[in-house]
């Protein structure tokens, strides 16, 4: 059409061309508007694909973006900022999840169990941050493939370096230095990652002083994955950590030894079968995944003070083998699986201390578990995950534990959830909930004197997504404990069977999480917990357990600018219960040799306790901030950081000691960590 018009104008009076001009059909490039494609965030995908009641998945990067603790990115401390989790104080290894006791949490590394993953009596988590890809955290109603604990499952997943060539990072900060290395191979299907960390305050003291600092801790973590022949995907995880305190007492010529640590090695193998695989001639799905796992996990604690005046040992060995077969089709993901476990425990302490009892316990548990799980998608609005787990514990009987989670999509962005589950646990800690400092858990197994503990969870909730990066989740929950045990504070070394006291109880509450996934500028979350816990002892006396914190709020945020990342965390928490001491006395010792009374040979006064946990410590609040220079991502990049814990030095008291020896008697308030600035630097390549 354009050609004809031009011809007419040029000729002026010329007539139209004799033949019609065919339209020009030569393909020409066209400019289209920009189309941006982004993958949906895993968190959103999980929202659509699974009920995930009480479940949070969070990447190692997001957790590391939270303000540092003593200058270090501490994954386990950051987990405590999530909804449903209450940490008693800065000096406690325990996590109380939705009203549960601190030994009710199953901590896994790539699905393999770890006991006591903490250093320095709870001040630091033992996982090396660069090795962490993400953390999957069930705060209740976990699926049937998980068992052995009552409250939660925390699965720390190792990072996998996707790039070929060796890449790494060095982090040097106030307490320690961490080195991590990794590389990808097999075109990204395989990778290896290793990391190590060690404190160096002891080495520093050797350089600058004649005094010795006889303490250090170190970690080593490794993960390898590759594709073996026959398309079998292999994963190998190794982990080792130790805290080491050995030295000479300054006031006597005695040595003292205190060390503890974990060792873990786990192997997984997985193979996918496609094109309608058959099992015994039957088809259950379009594809199937067969997986097998074995692990060997050890924990050991060894203390010997003052020529064996005080000794404490707690070796734990945990061997497991498990496997599952999962069939997938458009309606169902069906899994059947098994787990065989063998745990050996030994605990002996020759003198009671506040943090642990004097006792001697040797036991072992062997268990065989079967589970079945079906994720059913009956329509686009419903997700139903139903299953059951059966645990048979040798000599203790079997426990059938049904599990059910349901999600109903009101709209594609709004869902209502509900869950029910029953749970059993046959590993117990001798640490007491009423003691506000929890340096370690001292693990023993179940036997006739420490029966299997049981719990039931009821959960209902709502989850709403606002686009792809923001979500709000509100859940309410009730937990019933028909069978629990707690450590007997008066157990005797010579008396068999008095280590534990039986309890029953319940907890209920709710938690809210408003979460912003990273949009390149801001990421963070608001987590609010409300929890109410009550227990009853064998005498029928009701009391609030030591972890009964009613309200807790955590605001966590990190802002990414052009060069700097600013992070903050604000915490507000109401107080936990404590037992007041209403008096103090000294025991009169009867000297049978001379038939006379003497003051107690021990100068330790005895305390007269008031009603158990009848009072509460004051509320606590704290602000932590950190400032990190962004790495420039080119070759070797430096990233210094500065962080301040407890910016305005809030006086947060978590315990009281009472002294009736002075005039007038005194109450001493024990404070959490004060303001603490630290600096460090991270070098990556």
């Amino acid at each position, binding site marked *: 059409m354009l050609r004809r018009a031009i011809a007419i104008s040029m000729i002026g009076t010329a007539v139209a061309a004799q033949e019609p001009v065919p339209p020009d059909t030569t393909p020409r490039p066209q400019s289209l508007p920009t189309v941006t494609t982004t993958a949906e965030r895993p968190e959103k995908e999980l929202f659509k694909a699974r009920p995930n009641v009480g479940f949070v998945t969070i990447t190692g990067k997001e957790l590391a973006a939270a303000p540092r603790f003593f200058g270090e990115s501490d994954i386990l401390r950051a987990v405590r900022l999530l909804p449903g989790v209450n940490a008693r104080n800065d000096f406690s290894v325990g996590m109380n999840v939705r009203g549960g006791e601190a030994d009710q949490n199953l901590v896994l590394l790539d699905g393999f169990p770890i006991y006591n993953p903490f250093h320095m009596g709870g001040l630091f988590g033992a996982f090396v941050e660069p090795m962490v890809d993400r953390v999957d955290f069930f705060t209740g109603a976990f699926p049937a493939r998980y068992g052995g604990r009552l409250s939660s499952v925390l699965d720390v997943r190792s990072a996998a370096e996707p790039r070929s060539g060796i890449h790494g990072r060095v982090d040097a900060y106030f307490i320690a230095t961490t080195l991590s290395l990794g590389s990808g191979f097999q075109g990204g299907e395989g990778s290896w990652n290793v990391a190590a960390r060690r404190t160096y305050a002891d080495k520093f003291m050797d350089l600058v002083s004649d005094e010795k600092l006889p303490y250090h801790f170190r970690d080593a973590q490794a993960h390898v994955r590759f594709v073996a022949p026959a398309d079998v995907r292999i994963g190998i995880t190794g982990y080792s950590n130790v805290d080491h305190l050995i030295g000479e007492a300054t006031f006597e010529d005695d040595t003292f030894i205190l060390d503890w640590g974990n060792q873990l090695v786990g192997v997984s193998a997985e193979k996918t079968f496609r094109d309608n695989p058959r099992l015994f001639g039957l088809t259950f799905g379009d594809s199937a995944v067969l997986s097998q796992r074995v692990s060997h996990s050890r924990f050991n604690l060894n203390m010997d003070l003052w020529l064996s005046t*005080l000794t404490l040992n707690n070796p734990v060995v945990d061997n497991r083998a498990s496997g599952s077969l999962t069939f997938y089709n458009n309606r169902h993901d069906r899994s059947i699986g098994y787990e065989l476990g063998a745990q050996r425990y030994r605990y002996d302490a020759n003198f009671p201390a506040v943090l642990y009892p004097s006792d001697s316990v040797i036991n072992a548990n062997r268990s065989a578990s079967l589970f079945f799980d079906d994720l059913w998608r009956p329509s686009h609005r419903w997700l139903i995950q139903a299953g059951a787990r059966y645990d048979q514990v040798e000599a203790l009987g079997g426990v059938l534990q049904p599990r059910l989670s349901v999600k109903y999509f009101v709209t594609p962005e709004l869902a209502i959830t509900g869950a029910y589950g029953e749970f059993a646990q046959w590993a117990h800690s001798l640490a007491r909930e009423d003691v506000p400092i929890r340096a370690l858990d001292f693990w023993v197994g179940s036997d006739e004197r420490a029966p299997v503990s049981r719990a039931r969870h009821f959960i209902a909730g709502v989850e709403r997504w606002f686009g792809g990066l923001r979500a709000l989740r509100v859940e309410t929950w009730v937990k019933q404990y028909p069978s629990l045990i707690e450590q007997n504070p008066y157990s*005797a070394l010579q008396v068999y069977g008095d280590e534990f006291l039986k309890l029953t109880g319940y907890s209920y509450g709710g938690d809210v999480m408003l979460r912003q996934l990273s949009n390149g500028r801001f990421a963070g979350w608001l987590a609010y917990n409300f929890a109410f816990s009550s227990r009853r002892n064998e005498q029928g006396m009701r009391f609030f357990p030591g972890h009964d914190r009613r309200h807790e709020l955590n605001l966590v945020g990190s802002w990414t600018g052009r060069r700097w990342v600013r992070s903050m965390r604000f915490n507000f928490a109401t107080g936990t219960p404590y037992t007041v001491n209403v008096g103090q006395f000294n025991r*009169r010792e009867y000297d049978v040799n001379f038939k006379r009374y003497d003051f107690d040979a021990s*100068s330790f006064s005895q305390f007269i306790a008031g009603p158990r946990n009848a009072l509460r410590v004051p509320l606590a609040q704290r602000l932590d901030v950190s400032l990190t220079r962004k790495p420039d991502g080119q070759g070797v990049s430096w990233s210094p950081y500065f962080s301040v814990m407890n910016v305005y030095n809030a006086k947060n008291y978590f315990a009281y000691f009472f002294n009736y020896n002075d005039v007038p008697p005194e109450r001493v308030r024990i404070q959490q960590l004060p*303001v603490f600035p*630290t600096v460090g630097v991270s070098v990556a390549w």
Partner: protein
Amino acid sequence: MALTATFALAACEPPVEPIFDQERRILVHGILDLSADTQRVMLEWTRTTPSASNVGIVGATVRITSPQGQIATLAIRPPNAMPAPGDPARYIFLTSETFPLQRGATYQLSVQVPGEPAITGTTTIPDTNPNNSVTVRTLPFSVAHDTLRMTWRPVRGAAGYRVMVSGQHPVQQGAFLTTKGVFTDTAAVIPGTMQNLEGSDFFVPGYIAHVTALAVDDNYLTYYRAAADPFAGAPPSRLTGGAIGLFGSIVPVQRQRFNTQ
């Protein structure tokens, strides 16, 4: 790093506040010793301040009842003697004047302090005869090189056993070292260098060490074995009436004596 440490140290001073509301309880120490003629029950108030006088409770009615129904009324001796400030009141009865204690027997304690609830307690003496050897040979014992080893037969009714070590000055007979004890089963191995948690030696060179292994009842074991626990408090008292302390019993099963060097 120094600045950081300074901040930390400056903020670590624990604040202290006075306590004005304190509870006062009756504290009872009553231990029946099958090897002794004199049996004592000590009564006092728990301290509200360390300088409180008249801690000892006088004017109480203290009785011990035998399984046969015999009642011994304990009294302060000499009569009307007031305990020194800070000391308990000692209520005494002599088995030679009332009734002998019997192995395996159960005895009841009752204490009535004017204006206070009645206090009762029960103890069953371990079922064995006491080792009353008075001709125990004094053996040499080197603190640096020797280890004390003792074994004895189990005693029916004993909840546990305790080895008590008392030091006596060889010349000043009335000068004693604070007695030390360790709970054990039917055997004890105590090195010469053993110390208690305060760092006091069990055996002090130059002193005569009197060592006695005791069979103890459950009340005694529960009361003395427990360590000081500021979170749970002392073990629940087996005494009624809100009193704390114990009414227990012991029987010596083995004695030894050493010249400690």
